[in-house]
């Protein structure tokens, strides 16, 4: 071997940083309708290419095209539009509430509304999501009362979690929404366990795990794939690739691999990549994977390609690490606008009706917000008690904790 020279250290970096001009030209976007739709019992090795492509239904003209189209009625799509608009209005109000000091923290979904809203509609009652921090669409599309969401965010007297949890860390067994953990990744392998349990009990329910692009680096991601592939668990494993993990671009977690979906290939798992800003595509792929799970064909890994338009949370300012206008150049557009355009094209919707709906939805969100605030916000009004703080650590309070509660005088 000739002298190989000295090594050098490689750190991936995004193409553009603040001050630069946003450039997504390296993001390859297959035209809508191009990717085939295999049967759900396809062998994973026959669809490895799907991990490197991108399934899209809505084209630039707002038409639904290709083999993944035509799964939903106009009514269902209108409902989907309403869910996404509701989530967006909800986000806007809660962001503002946080700025007003009514709560400590908030995380919005701007740009990613299609992913959780459309996915939820592919599930059946009894199925269980194991969400992370940016899937409130699962609750909204699943009919969970917004008053409860707001009460949780405000840690007020109606908070179903008694003030114990950080805002947005919802939990609802009834609505198939597993208690959110602040620790990234942990839920992914728990979803697999839940699915294994359903199979052990010869039940019909399936589970869905959720994780962000950045969090795929966590150990739980690996454990989830190992256990899901070994036991062929009836679970859909969802990666939401919104391009960013706080200030860190997806290239740091993805490294040399072409896509996040490709991580499934090493496990012999069908791995699909989908336009996450395309309500129809998300729903069609979700349905496909849910059917696989339900028919005991095993796990599916799905990467939703989307973009986090807003800040990571109310604790950060993205202009410190990416160009201000980057989201405007994002090639997959806005999920709400795209679905709206499609519905207009279908003749089922119009600009006026959209405006009207927007106003209605906002009004209703504001009304709920008022109701929630009447029950308290983080620093004022009625709120969970210090007693609540001592409850629920165990089923029955052990003596040492009873003594502590007494000491606290509550």
């Amino acid at each position, binding site marked *: 071997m000739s002298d190989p020279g000295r090594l050098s250290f490689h750190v991936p970096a995004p193409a553009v940083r603040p001050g630069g001009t946003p450039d997504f030209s390296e993001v390859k976007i297959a035209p809508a309708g191009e990717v085939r739709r295999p049967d759900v019992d396809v062998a994973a090795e026959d669809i490895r290419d799907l991990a490197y492509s991108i399934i899209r239904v809505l084209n630039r003209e707002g038409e639904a095209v290709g083999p993944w189209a035509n799964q939903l009625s106009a009514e269902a799509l209108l409902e989907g539009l309403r869910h996404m608009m509701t989530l967006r209005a909800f986000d806007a109000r809660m962001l503002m509430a946080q700025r007003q000091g009514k709560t400590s923290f908030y995380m919005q979904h701007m740009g990613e509304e299609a992913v959780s809203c459309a996915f939820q509609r592919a599930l059946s009652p009894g199925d269980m999501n194991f969400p992370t921090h940016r899937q409130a669409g699962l609750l909204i599309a699943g009919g969970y009362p917004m008053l409860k969401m707001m009460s949780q965010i405000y840690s007020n007297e109606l908070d179903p979690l008694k003030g114990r949890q950080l805002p947005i860390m919802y939990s609802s067994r009834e609505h198939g929404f597993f208690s959110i953990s602040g620790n990234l990744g942990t839920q992914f392998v728990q979803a697999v366990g839940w699915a294994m*349990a359903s199979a052990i009990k010869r039940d019909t329910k399936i589970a869905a795990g959720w994780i962000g692009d950045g969090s795929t680096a966590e150990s739980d991601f690996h454990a989830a794939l190992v256990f899901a592939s070994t036991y062929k668990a009836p679970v859909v494993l969802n990666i939401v690739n919104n391009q960013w993990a706080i200030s860190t671009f997806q290239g740091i977690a993805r490294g040399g691999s072409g896509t996040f979906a490709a991580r499934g290939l090493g496990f012999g798992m069908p791995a699909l990549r989908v336009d996450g800003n395309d309500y129809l595509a998300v729903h069609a792929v979700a349905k496909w994977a849910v059917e696989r799970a339900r028919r005991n064909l095993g796990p599916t890994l799905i990467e939703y390609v989307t973009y986090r338009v807003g800040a990571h949370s109310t604790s950060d300012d993205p202009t410190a690490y990416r160009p201000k206008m980057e989201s405007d150049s994002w090639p997959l557009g806005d999920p709400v606008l795209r679905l709206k355009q499609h519905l207009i094209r279908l003749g089922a919707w119009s600009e006026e009706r959209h405006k009207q709906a927007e106003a209605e939805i906002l009004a209703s969100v504001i009304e709920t917000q008022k109701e929630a605030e009447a029950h308290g916000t983080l620093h004022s009004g009625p709120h969970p008690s210090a007693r609540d703080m001592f409850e*629920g650590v165990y089923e029955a309070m*052990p*003596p040492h904790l009873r003594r502590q509660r007494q000491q606290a005088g509550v």
Partner: protein
Amino acid sequence: MVEAIRDALDVSMQRDENVVVFGEDVGYFGGVFRCTQGLQQKFGMSRCFDTPISELGIVGVAVGMAAYGLRPCVEIQFADYMYPGYDQIVSEVARLRYRSNGEFTAPLVVRMPTGGGIFGGQTHSQSPEALFVHVAGLKTVVPSNPYDAKGLLIAAIEDNDPVIFLEPKRLYNGPFDGHHDRPVTPWSKHAQGEVPDGHYTVPLGKAAIRRAGAAVTVLAYGTMVFVAEAAAAETGIDAEVIDLRTLLPYDLETIVASVEKTGRCVIVHEATLTGGYGAELAALVQERCFYSLEAPIARVTGWDTPYPHAQEWDYFPGPARVGRALKAVMEA
């Protein structure tokens, strides 16, 4: 004690079909210590199975299963290997009930062989109980004999809270008082080796007085119970030996009653000294029994080093060291 544990699993699996058992090598083979032998054959592959080598995965899927409604009783091959699963234990298992306000719970048991005395070196000898006791939401149990092991394990599986179940591996095949140069007594020759058939429980949170005494209280658990008994016998000191059995919730009443009577206290454990469970016991005892104490509370523990291989018996807190501490406390 192996048979007693197996029996507890068998009884529990028979009574409740939501009880499932899994871990590394626990399925076909029945576990490296054979605690699950025969269970796969009896209950089928869906109730008892092998897992990939991922302690994170074992605990993580157990959380999901428990949330579904099962009662997983999983095995970590050695307590020394629980660390990859520690995040799931601390951040998930322990807090699930609390953070979901009871909507989701994790009634699971994590069994793991613990402690030294088998020339297992630094990675087959650890006693990490302090790392569980500090975590709100967990219960931690350490049996010292077959009767208790069965009854406590059944109680742990039936408990609606998560339980860390630490099995002193040096006790698997017989009591051990630290006299490693003497022949091993099998459990069959020991009173507590008698294990009733069928279902019974030993309640969590209750200590047992193994040896009544008036001069000094010894707080111990697991293997150290036998070491303490030996030390008492050999020094002739009238020690009251308390087997804590459950480290959390602990049985403060029994502890305080004894120390108030004896006025002296020695705490014994195999884990490293600093920040060990003995520190908590000492803090509690001095707080509760301050005015009864006639001497400083002494701790006899593993040294603050990794568990060495060749120096096993220099490290292990045997009857000689415990005996010296008893004498010192009596003379203080």
